[in-house]
């Protein structure tokens, strides 16, 4: 009594979208490296780099891994442990003063 697969993944983006996303990813990487070499940005380097990295992370997960379009269940399976992992990492960084270094 197999239920009909309700194709949650029907709304796949087109190849054009994929290529566009990849191009943006490439550009962000270039910006990251550029920022890294700009002395003027030294004081705000860490937040900028973390934000750019998070943007790339979200794009790959959202578009390439289809999490943006796929069933909410997958999102829960991924985001739940991710949140716990990030929380534990933050707590450890605070305990070890990683941010203040």
């Amino acid at each position, binding site marked *: 009594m197999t239920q009909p697969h309700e194709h*949650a993944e029907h709304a796949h983006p087109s190849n054009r979208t994929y290529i566009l996303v990849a191009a943006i990813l490439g550009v962000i990487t270039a910006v990251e490296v550029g920022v890294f070499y700009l002395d003027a940005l030294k004081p705000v380097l860490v937040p900028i780099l973390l934000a750019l990295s998070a943007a790339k992370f979200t794009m790959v997960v959202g578009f390439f891994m289809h999490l943006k379009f796929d069933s909410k269940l997958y999102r829960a*399976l991924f985001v739940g442990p991710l949140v716990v992992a990030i929380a534990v990492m933050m707590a450890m960084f605070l305990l*070890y003063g990683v941010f203040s270094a």
Partner: protein
Amino acid sequence: MSQTDAAAMEMHSATGLPNRKILMWAFIGSECMLFGSLIIVYMVYRGKSLVGPYPADLLNIPFITVTTFVLLMSSLMMVLALSAVQRGDMKWGKIWLFMTALLGMVFLGGQVYEFSHFVHEGLTLKTNLFGGSFFLLTGTHGAHVAVGVIWLMSLVFMAQRGRLTQANAETVEIAGLYWHFVDVVWIVLFTLIYLLV
């Protein structure tokens, strides 16, 4: 194996989602904690080495930027492969899969070069905390890439034999999830290890 699986047991899916894809996502959740723990080790030991060489002495940003870009592009190849297989275009599916694996191998080659260069410069597992935590973190990631390359090459091989068809798009999709996740981990590592020296 999933088709036989489902057929044999007349499996009922409460959510309408394939078992193996749920499995892969749950596994990826678990991997978040694995890499999270490894990152904890690396970050906690950052700047705690008592002797050199230190990260700033060794890390080659332009070089690693190139391999990072290669890995990012492999993810693009991967989505193109999946979309081709889903369309039933096995010829392009096979080509994109092979390209994905190839770029993965290029990335691994870069890592082998980087590791041997570091060893040559006097950084081994035993040298200092940076050596141990760097090789363990990037090495674990590299091992994941290697597993992915083997997996992708097996798919290429299966496609070559005609055993991978449009009906197996799910198999490709699951390999893709794994591959993209490995890419995502590298996005984080690239920033934490190389840019936040």
